[in-house]
């Protein structure tokens, strides 16, 4: 492996990120700039930025790794990640934008008029953010240690420092530019090597017969349960991701929010074809490329395995650059949204509070990530999706569509879903591979549980239905005046 080339690629991406971030510093001056880029971001910029933010380590490295490892069953990951945006468009995008709130807790407070609901939502957002940042840092640690031989913490440390600098300097406005740039970098960083590899395998003889790739890791009823549960988590989890939601507030109005989402779907569809092709190529042509313990390294090792020589080196450097863009963009998006919530709820708001909150939101996950490691990035991220699907998704969907949602119901539902799904996640971490499938993939029962409790308790507590529920719903659904 060509370590200097990989290091150079990492430094280049880091430099570009910091430069664009500091460029944003000159134009972000107000609190509103920091939090939501003053709501003046156009659909194309915003769609690229959302794509840039959303395509994390799990998408860039994890999907191909799981396709390599598990075959056809893993195809539900890219499809689910994309279809989650369809659900976001259908149930959340335009009304959420019209709600006029900065963050998810703002929405909860505006809709339910309850400080308790607000605090609980804030807690969940901070928890989700941190849980989601950790696998990004694991991805960075893995990439740097494999590509350069440096200790793993050097990778996660680099990401932590750059993200802190960029976010503290520019807030959301500059992050929009950074992330839009990083989307196109990620797309190119997978597309170019994929094209090269597709051509280079034309003369190769498949190591395994194409039909052998059909076999799936799990089969029968358990396999079906696992797929359905995972798909449900990905579909509904996207709805609640704080760093995705915060982006919707940067659209000028409801119809623009919809337009942006359709554009994002196009961009994601384009991107997710690539890791599928890469995973397939690895599975068919180089089945021995990595041992089962680190499937996420497939994308990093594949270019050199299929295209030897200096071209392979260059392609590898490109992939490394793309991977780093993925760690940086998702992490910074998460840090912005977590810092937004932390500073408003605990540090008194304002630009100064935001900066301190950003430092905190980066430091804690970093400290957690150093002594731990993710067995498979897409898997760890899938669990975070299950958690948001069981907590923030029901409160958003019912809050937007159901006038009878009561404050008590919302709080009880979030608690039931959060404790159920969170408990299963802890149990999975403790039991490891011994965890039964209904524990390691909790979404299939924890999401219905959260919805059922929310609806049931709301029926039982009609007195805690907010008096202005219809007034709020009118604001969410009535189109803007021309």
């Amino acid at each position, binding site marked *: 492996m060509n370590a200097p080339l990989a290091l150079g690629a990492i430094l280049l991406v880091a430099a570009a990120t910091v430069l664009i971030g500091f460029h944003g510093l000159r134009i972000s001056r107000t609190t509103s700039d920091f939090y939501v880029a003053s709501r003046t971001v156009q659909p194309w910029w915003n769609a690229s930025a959302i794509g840039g933010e959303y395509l994390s380590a799990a998408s860039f490295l994890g999907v191909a790794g799981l396709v390599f490892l598990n075959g*056809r069953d893993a*195809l*539900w990951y*890219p*499809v689910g990640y*994309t*279809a989650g945006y*369809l*659900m976001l*468009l*259908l*149930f959340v995008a*335009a009304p959420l934008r019209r709600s*006029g709130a900065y963050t998810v807790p703002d929405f909860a407070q*505006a809709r339910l008029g309850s400080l308790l609901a607000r605090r609980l939502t804030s807690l969940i957002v901070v928890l989700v953010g941190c849980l989601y940042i950790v696998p990004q840092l694991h991805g960075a640690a893995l990439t740097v240690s494999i590509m350069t031989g440096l200790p793993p913490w050097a990778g996660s440390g680099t990401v932590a420092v750059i993200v802190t600098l960029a976010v503290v300097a520019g807030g959301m406005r500059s992050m929009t530019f950074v992330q839009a740039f990083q989307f196109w970098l990620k797309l190119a960083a997978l597309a170019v090597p994929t094209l090269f590899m597709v051509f280079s395998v034309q003369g190769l003889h*498949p190591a395994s017969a*194409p*039909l052998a*790739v*059909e076999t799936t890791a799990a089969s029968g009823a358990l396999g079906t349960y696992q*797929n359905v549960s995972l*798909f449900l988590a990905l579909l509904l989890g996207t709805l609640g991701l704080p760093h995705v939601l915060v982006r919707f507030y940067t659209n000028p109005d409801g*119809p623009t929010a*919809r*337009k942006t*989402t*359709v554009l994002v*779907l*196009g961009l994601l*569809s384009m991107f*997710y*074809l690539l890791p*599928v092709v890469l995973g*397939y190529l690895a599975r068919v042509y180089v089945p021995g490329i990595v041992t089962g313990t680190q499937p996420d390294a497939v994308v990093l090792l594949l270019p050199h395995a299929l295209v030897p020589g200096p071209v392979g080196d260059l392609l590898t450097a490109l992939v490394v650059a793309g991977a780093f863009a993925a760690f940086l963009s998702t992490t910074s998006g998460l840090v912005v949204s977590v810092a937004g919530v932390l500073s408003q709820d605990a540090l008194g708001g304002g630009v100064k509070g935001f900066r301190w909150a950003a430092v905190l939101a980066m430091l804690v996950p970093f400290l957690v990530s150093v002594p731990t490691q993710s067995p498979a990035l897409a898997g760890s991220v899938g669990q975070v999706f299950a958690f948001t699907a069981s907590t923030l998704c029901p409160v958003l969907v019912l809050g937007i*569509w159901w006038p009878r949602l009561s404050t008590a119901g919302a709080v009880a539902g979030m608690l039931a879903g959060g404790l159920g799904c969170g408990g299963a996640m802890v149990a999975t971490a403790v039991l490891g591979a011994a965890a039964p499938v209904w524990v390691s993939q909790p979404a299939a029962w924890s999401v219905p549980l959260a919805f059922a409790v929310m609806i049931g308790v709301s029926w039982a507590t009609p007195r805690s239905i907010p*008096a*202005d529920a*219809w*007034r*709020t*719903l*009118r*604001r969410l*659904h*009535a*189109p803007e*005046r*021309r």
Partner: protein
Amino acid sequence: MTRVRVAAPTRQSRVISSGRPAPHGGRRASGEDDAAQVYLRSLLRSQLRLALVIALGFLLIAGLFSLVGWVPWLRGLSILGVPFAWILLGAGLFPVILLSAVLYTRQAQRNEERYRDLTEER
């Protein structure tokens, strides 16, 4: 679905809410208030129905696509050496997602247009 007529809470017009005012909030005669409420309910219902139909339609197609792996004569099918079931799941669902999104956006905009026509003529 049965239609249940529920009058708007009378307190509603007195509640002072933060943020920008609703397009038709504020003070008006109770008859007009009722009409506005009916229009809003029907907008809400048509948007939700639309979203659910599109979501279920997509899930149905996704389910059908995933069944292909179990059909014996389709299992053996492959295009340029890539198994058909892989192409269907790994690439075929993305156009379905995009089409659903475009269809939804157009119809949702139309629903809002209708609501606007109903409420702004007054």
